[in-house]
């Protein structure tokens, strides 16, 4: 386009009788000089447009590259003698930590059991990696659970086994690892939870403190490198320092291993520190789902009361 303009025969200097005409032509030509500028402007505009398009594309790409949904609860309802959960929905994306908080007896732990398919919802879907697990057979559910690590309120370590045997249990059950590889993996996981394998591996669970039991529970949950970790009251019954250690550990898992976690807890302080999102379970429903910042900024009376000035 620029070449066409510069090659225009009217561009050169002129003189003679036709000068007026020429001048007129020149004026038109001088009008054409701004044309070139205009063309440049057009080119700039096009470039700008392209950049804008690229930005828009990039924005779209970012939107589609949002971490995949690992755990999805869609309109889940469950009742035993009385309704426990009604139309509960939330999504935990890869690497997110969802803290489920609420009063006692509101069905928080039931949500974990639904995710593990220890319970089946009366209505709605529970999806792991996009797959609805409600219709799975018992054996298929066992397979799904092999990809999920769970830390129980009381750690639930096997009394009859040593710490090492506890951590090695999922590896011995579901992998073909050699014994030395199992030992190596168990040591790694114990080190990850800040325990000294040399000191602790041969102890029995009865010889451990509450915090150590929880950490061994985390190491056991992590042994098979699960994609999902579930925690049932991980900090209950622990002193503030150990509570901090366990909370840091959960955050470390999120940041270093991108494990998707669901934490059922009463401990608001820990929930605010560790959670990407907080789900407040109230009156069988999730009455709030959002970031800790959104929760603390909420004007809802119940949320304010629940947080108790936190």
């Amino acid at each position, binding site marked *: 386009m620029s070449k066409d303009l510069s090659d225009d025969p009217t561009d050169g200097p002129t003189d003679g009788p036709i000068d007026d005409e020429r001048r007129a032509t020149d004026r038109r030509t001088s009008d054409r000089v701004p044309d070139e500028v205009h063309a440049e402007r057009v080119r700039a505009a096009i470039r700008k447009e392209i950049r804008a398009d690229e930005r828009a594309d990039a924005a779209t790409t970012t939107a589609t590259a949002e971490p995949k949904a690992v755990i999805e609860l869609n309109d889940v309802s469950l009742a035993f003698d009385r309704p426990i959960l009604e139309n509960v929905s939330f999504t935990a994306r890869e690497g997110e930590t969802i803290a489920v908080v609420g009063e006692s007896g509101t069905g928080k732990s039931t949500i974990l059991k639904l995710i593990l398919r220890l319970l089946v919802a009366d209505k709605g879907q529970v999806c792991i990696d996009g797959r609805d697990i409600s219709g799975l057979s018992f054996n298929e559910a066992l397979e799904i659970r092999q990809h999920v690590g769970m830390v129980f*309120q009381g750690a639930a370590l*096997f*009394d009859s086994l040593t710490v090492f045997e506890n951590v090695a249990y999922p590896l011995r059950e579901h992998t073909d690892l050699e014994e030395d590889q199992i030992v190596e993996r168990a040591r790694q996981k114990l080190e990850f939870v800040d325990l000294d394998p040399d000191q602790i591996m041969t102890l029995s669970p009865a010889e451990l403190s509450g915090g150590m039991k929880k950490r061994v529970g985390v190491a056991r949950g992590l042994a098979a490198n699960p994609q999902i970790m579930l925690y049932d009251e991980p900090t209950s019954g622990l002193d503030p320092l150990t509570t901090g250690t366990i909370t840091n550990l959960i955050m470390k898992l999120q940041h270093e291993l991108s494990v998707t976690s669901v934490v059922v807890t009463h401990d608001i302080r820990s929930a605010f520190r560790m959670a990407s999102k907080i789900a407040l379970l109230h009156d069988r429903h999730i009455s709030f789902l959002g970031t800790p910042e959104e929760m603390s900024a909420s004007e809802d009376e119940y949320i304010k009361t629940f947080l108790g000035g936190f």
Partner: protein
Amino acid sequence: MAILQRLNAAAKDKIFSLQEAFFLAWNAIRFIFVRPFYREDMIQQMDAIGVQSLGIVVLTGFFTGMVLALQSAVQMARFGATTYVGSLVSASMIRELGPVLAGLMVAGRVGSGIAAQLGSMRVTEQIDALNVMGTDPIKKLVTPRLVAALIMLPLLTVINDVAGMFGGSVIAKFYIKLPTSVYWGTVWDQISSGGFLFRIVPNDFVHGLFKPFVFGGIIALTACHFGLRTTGGTEGVGVATTRTVVTSSILILVVDYFITQVLLALLPR
């Protein structure tokens, strides 16, 4: 109405419990033939159920044999038939007392232990942990205990029988003053007079070995059923233990009667 509702709820609970017990039994038996086999757990349970019960079974058998010989000697002396003490002791021990006593002792010692262990595992979420880690608790916990009990109870019964007959022989020798050869001769006479299965296996042995096999199953399954159904914390563990001992003891005595009826009909002299 309230009473009817309570009765209805109680009946439903019993039926549900029974259904669960049959489901447990079916799966525990089915898993004997399905991989993975928990051999180490099985051997450990054989030790716990069999080897560690040896002491009480030998003592029970020995003293039961002694008291049987003593009582029968007193009664039979009136008819001048004390020679047949060995016959009476062996018939009682092999056919009835051996299996039933071994069953009751193991129900008390092992059944309660299994119920307490599984009950504690239930209330401390260890059973849930097994489930979560992709292990079927029936396969891991119930099947090894069932297999161990099925194998060990007949063996314990044989030991109980032998201890009982030795107890009887001690009384025969030192109290009745009966020559040992006469005592053991009448023991064998009794065994051979009961008839043989396939002309080889004495019918007394069939009675004496089939019953403890069934009792082993009753003890293991009852204990696992109540243990796995434990609710209500440590108090629930106590309840599960008591129920196990009471239920399995009653079942042993009731089932013993029916097995005897069936075996007598199937294995005539």
